[in-house]
């Protein structure tokens, strides 16, 4: 059964048991910096491969960009 999360404010279907790392990989952001907040709490990079997404999760994914 698939689930749906909010990813940067948009609906995003996820596989059952899919991890943060798995989703990032699938979206083409498996490498480099992806900064992840799940339900308002930052997720440690070391835990991306173990944190499993659940139906209704709110995910914010950011990254470093040019700035002064």
């Amino acid at each position, binding site marked *: 059964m698939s689930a749906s999360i909010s*990813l*940067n404010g948009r609906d995003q279907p996820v596989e059952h048991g899919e991890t943060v790392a798995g989703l990032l990989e699938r*979206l*083409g*952001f498996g*490498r*480099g*910096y*992806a*900064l*992840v*907040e799940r339900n308002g709490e*930052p*997720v*440690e*990079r070391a835990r991306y491969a173990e944190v499993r997404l659940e139906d209704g999760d709110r995910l*914010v*994914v*950011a*990254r*470093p*960009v*040019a*700035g*002064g």
Partner: protein
Amino acid sequence: MSTHDPLVIAGREFGSRLLTGTGKFDTFETMRDALTVSGSEIVTVAVRRIDFDARDEDITTFLPEHMLLLPNTSGCATADEAVRSARLARAGGLPDWVKLEVIPDPRYLLPDPVETLRAAATLVEDGFTVLPYVSPDPVLQKKLEEVGCATVMPLAAPIGSGRGLKLRDAIRIMVEQAEVPLVVDAGLGSPSHAAEAMEMGADAVLVNSAIAGAEDPVAMARAFGLAVEAGRMAFHAGVIEEREQAAASSPLAGALHQP
């Protein structure tokens, strides 16, 4: 004078006193080349939501590895937003250093001193090395030092204005009483502005728009690097006092036309 004159922030030594922002360059290649010739060892980045529809390049692949990435909290208008941004960056693997900026006012882009102080206290408590961006305010400087900030970074003039040291007198007081490095950040338009700040005794400067917006950003980055070095050297060498009257630099006696 000893040539070993590192900038020391939170116990870490840096060989360059020029910090550089990565914004507004036409291409990441130009940015990389400018940062490289500038000599900078600390470069700022912003943190923004990924647009999954756009296939933007990853800026970090263009940043030389020896440079310390300094995430800023630009776009944050309150202390809570800034703390959230810093924590997100650190959790995601960026350094636990943060250029703290809390800017509620989109017109003049001036930082909020109350929210900045509040966020600084929280972030220091949380283990961050905090480099706050502030208006030149010697009283606020002391309060930021008291809560444990690693630097204080007063603006010379509004961000991106290129107007130079418009609030010179306040910055001079801050230089005199600084107990942590004073970094003049924002508003410097030309290398002479940077040199002037360094001659006054600023520990470092942070420059972005003046380099990125130059006709030749790479050459301008090098010019800023040289100006910062020159200004620092002049500070150590001791700049002469200004005088009201002329003072001849050649002997007054023995001129050839004298009888």
